């Protein structure tokens, strides 16, 4: 791994580059983060706790589900267990990025994993696949992305009482729209699209079967096995 000497001019360049990489991601984080903040305020969380959840947990969909449960008066243990199940999918993402970061050392990997989200995962897996594994850039992207997330949650929590509903602004569509953009970038060939379609339908079937909490992780395992299986089979 090559280390570069970085002078202040290049340093500014690196900050600028990282900012350009997360700009589209921020476009999705801002509305979702604000929606979270608004809903947290409505669920009765203090502004401080809403912000701290974005600092410590930093997982969009789990945070939205958690505030829903807080609002419904669910016991803490069931909120924590639900968060665990919903976020288990990161197991697969962490494993998928492992080959790229194996030379980083455990401390840096542990720090990197703290900010592993659906969106940063999609962004980094693309960068790493292109051979762009610059460590500074990677951490800068992660730090900026979480900063945007925290500030958006904070703004949402402050504005919460003044926002009657998140629907007219389509804040609830930011997450699906983000997944569409990320998916289109990841699916670089026909088999990847086929895998996406197959996995999507599997997830739908699982949700309909009542396995809401497990649908993502189970469908992902089945779908990746399908994709890798077809690739192995067609290459023979």
């Amino acid at each position, binding site marked *: 791994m090559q280390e570069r000497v970085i002078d202040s001019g290049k340093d500014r360049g690196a900050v600028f580059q990282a900012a350009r990489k997360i700009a589209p991601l921020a476009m999705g984080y801002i509305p979702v983060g604000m929606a979270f903040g608004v809903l947290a305020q409505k669920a009765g969380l203090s502004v401080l706790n809403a912000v701290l959840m974005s600092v410590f*947990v930093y997982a969009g969909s789990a945070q939205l589900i958690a505030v829903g449960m807080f609002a419904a008066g669910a016991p803490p243990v069931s909120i924590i267990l639900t968060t665990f199940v919903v976020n288990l999918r990161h197991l*697969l993402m962490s494993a998928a990025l492992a080959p790229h970061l194996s030379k980083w050392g455990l401390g840096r990997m542990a720090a990197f994993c703290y900010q592993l989200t659906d969106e940063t995962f999609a962004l980094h897996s693309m960068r790493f696949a292109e051979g762009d594994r610059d460590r500074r850039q990677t951490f800068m992207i992660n730090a900026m992305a979480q900063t945007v997330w925290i500030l958006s949650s904070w703004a949402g929590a402050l504005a919460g009482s003044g926002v009657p509903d998140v629907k007219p602004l389509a804040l609830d569509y930011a997450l699906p*729209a*983000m997944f*569409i*953009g990320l998916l289109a970038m990841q699916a670089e060939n026909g088999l990847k699209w086929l895998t996406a379609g197959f996995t999507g339908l599997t997830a739908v079937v699982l949700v309909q079967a009542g396995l809401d909490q497990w649908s993502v992780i189970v469908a992902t395992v089945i779908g990746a096995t399908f994709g890798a299986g077809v690739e192995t089979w067609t290459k023979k």
Partner: protein
Amino acid sequence: MDQKIVFLTILGMAAVTYIPRAAPMLALAARGIPEPVMRWLSYIPVAVLSAMLAPSLLLREGSFDFGMDNLFLWAALPAFALAIKTRSFFGTVALGMGLVAAGRFFLGG
């Protein structure tokens, strides 16, 4: 609501979120990963994204909805087209949200 309990719940959530994020990478770093496993892992990104996306587009309250008022589904079509054509993540999010907001405004969904 007792904010102290909320805070302790948040700490619990943080712990159960961090462990699955870090454990596989730290465990796999110690040894090489065989080729078939690498191949399998290369399908994880598309699989996990579509597993999260598809139910939100196709299902409403647990059952299929292909009705005209399922804005999430219909807005996804031009959003996908734009994403594939331009590879613009920014444009895709803006178009998708814009269409859903406009649909709700005009159709009152």
